[in-house]
């Protein structure tokens, strides 16, 4: 089973990376970017019987390790319930 975990800074928390990248894009002429925030995505390939249970485990992993509850939010996505990953 394939899953993605998004970990991003909570709203309101300063994102110096995002600010710098946005400004750099402006400098290159991309004025249309109104907001930009940089987060992490973890792509996992799991040995798991079924999605509901997998999601539960993943959320637990997020709470225990993958996300920092003080500064970050997370979101779990099951991408593919069976096959091996085949990422671009």
């Amino acid at each position, binding site marked *: 089973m394939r899953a993605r975990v998004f970990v991003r800074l909570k709203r309101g928390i300063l994102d*110096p*990376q995002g600010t*710098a*990248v946005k400004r*750099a894009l402006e*400098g*290159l002429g991309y004025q249309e970017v109104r907001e930009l925030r*940089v987060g992490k995505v973890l792509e996992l390939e799991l040995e798991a019987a079924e999605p509901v249970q997998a999601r539960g485990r993943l959320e637990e992993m997020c709470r225990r390790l993958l996300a920092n509850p003080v500064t970050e939010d997370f979101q779990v996505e099951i991408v593919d319930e069976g096959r091996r990953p085949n990422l671009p």
Partner: protein
Amino acid sequence: MRFGVVIFPGTWSDCDFHFVIGEVLHQPVKYVWHRDTDLSEYDCVILPGGFSYGDYLRAGAIAGRSPVVEALGDFLAGGGFVLGSCNGFQILCEAKLLPGALLRNECLQYRCQSTFLFVENAETPFTRGLRPGQVLKMPISHGEGKYYGDAETLRILRGRNQIVFRYCTEAGEITKEANPNGSVENIAGIMNEEGTVLGLMPHPERAAESALGGTDGLLLFHSLIGSLIEDGSFLKR
């Protein structure tokens, strides 16, 4: 020989290069602002270490698209030399002036330590004064210094003798233990095909006075200054 030391927002080895070139080597040196594009008054432009733009996207990525870097093409075409150290090396790779890329250190930590460098190619303008196989001592200070190139890139680098320095032991052995960041084939520094652009992760400016732990860094400058005088480009410009 006239040197220009570039300042990007977040650069911090600018003053160090300026000091070494001006006060130790007694060569004319000026600062170059990252928005400047007229490099005609310099023989060699230095891209120093630091965290340009905080290295916030990838090390050197944002600086690699700045006006001064865009101007380097013409500068090189006009016979100039470019030396990028640490962040400067990262910028050169990001700007495609050198092949490959620099990734996060394999240990996932920042490393500030002394390293030894094996001189692979002693025929470049930057290393002409050295012996092949000579071992230099130079410090590193970076979190993203793992050199990466795909098989094809490495083949070309080897074939054209573009690998200039590899991390080695004090005795000159190229071993895994001597590799501080996981660079492929222990690569610490490379040059472009023409030999006019040198990028290296170590800091030659930090090895330029014996009181600070060695003078091997000066050898690069001596070679360069010697090369320039020798091949007459000094007079041409």
